[in-house]
């Protein structure tokens, strides 16, 4: 299964994602430059973490207008798997591929540490290998992870089982309903603030993040 990792100006987790797909998941992977307009041949696309366009104006607000985002829109509309991690999640929100928006962390600190998240929906293309309600240890590293959505939007997320990950025991950033990751209604676009690519090998303190990528692979292989 062929994975693609998008590079925006200011992305800084692109190499980590690339490494995990190639060396740990052992799948073919290619970088996708932000000016590219063609995603033919890819099975899954990763929008990595970082500070695209310096986080100017709002996180993800400028990246959303990159040429590649038109292609990502089309790719998603055709059912391709898209995962946005951290800044990638912020870009998906700004692009309208996922509902809601990000605010500054409640305590105004950039927070970089391991947190616990609970797998709330394990029947998605990104979490099918997690046990129901499994607690995952995955690090976060962000300044704007305080997920916001209005009450009607939150009800909709709940009704459609779109909340995939919630912070467990401790909410680091003040996000609504402890949300750490959500999926679109169609089930092929996921955004999450924690970094699974930073927790895919035991040497880093946790392998729980690998479950996300393995789940994607599992889904794609079954689909074929």
């Amino acid at each position, binding site marked *: 299964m062929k994975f693609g990792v998008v590079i925006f100006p200011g992305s800084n987790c692109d190499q980590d994602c690339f490494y995990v797909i190639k060396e740990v998941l052992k799948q073919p992977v290619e970088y996708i430059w932000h000016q590219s307009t063609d995603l033919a041949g890819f099975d899954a696309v990763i929008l990595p973490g970082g500070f695209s366009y310096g986080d100017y*104006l709002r996180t993800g*607000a*400028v990246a959303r207008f990159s040429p590649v985002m038109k292609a990502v829109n089309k790719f998603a509309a055709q059912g391709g798997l898209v995962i946005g991690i951290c800044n990638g999640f912020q870009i998906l929100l700004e692009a309208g591929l996922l509902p809601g928006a990000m605010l*500054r962390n409640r305590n*105004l600190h950039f927070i970089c540490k391991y947190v616990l998240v609970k797998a709330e929906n394990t029947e998605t293309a990104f979490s099918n290998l997690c046990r129901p309600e499994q607690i995952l240890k995955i690090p976060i590293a962000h300044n704007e992870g*305080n997920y*916001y959505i209005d009450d009607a939007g939150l009800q909709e997320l709940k009704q459609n089982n779109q909340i995939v990950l919630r912070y467990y025991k401790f909410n680091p950033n003040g996000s609504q309903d402890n949300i750490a990751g959500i999926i679109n209604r169609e089930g092929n676009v996921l955004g999450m603030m924690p970094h699974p690519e930073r927790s895919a090998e035991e040497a880093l303190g946790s392998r729980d993040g690998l479950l996300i990528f393995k789940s994607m692979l599992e889904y794609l292989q079954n689909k074929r």
Partner: protein
Amino acid sequence: MLKAEIHITLKKTVVDPQGLIIKHALESIGYKGLEEARIGKMITLTLNYRQKKRAEREIREMCKKLLANPIIEEYTFKLREEK
């Protein structure tokens, strides 16, 4: 030429963590009369044309498309002529 001054603020219904901190800071240095403090952004644009109607329409578009996020923010703007 036209000068536009655009103010972007978080909606009243959205918690403003920066505003809260500022309010606490002001209170800690002795200002007790604060009901609320909120922070926003100010963007100035200089336009190379003079048609006000066009400017209003374009600025509204810019705010909707890029400058403000309608989910969490609202905007106002002022236009003035500059020689």
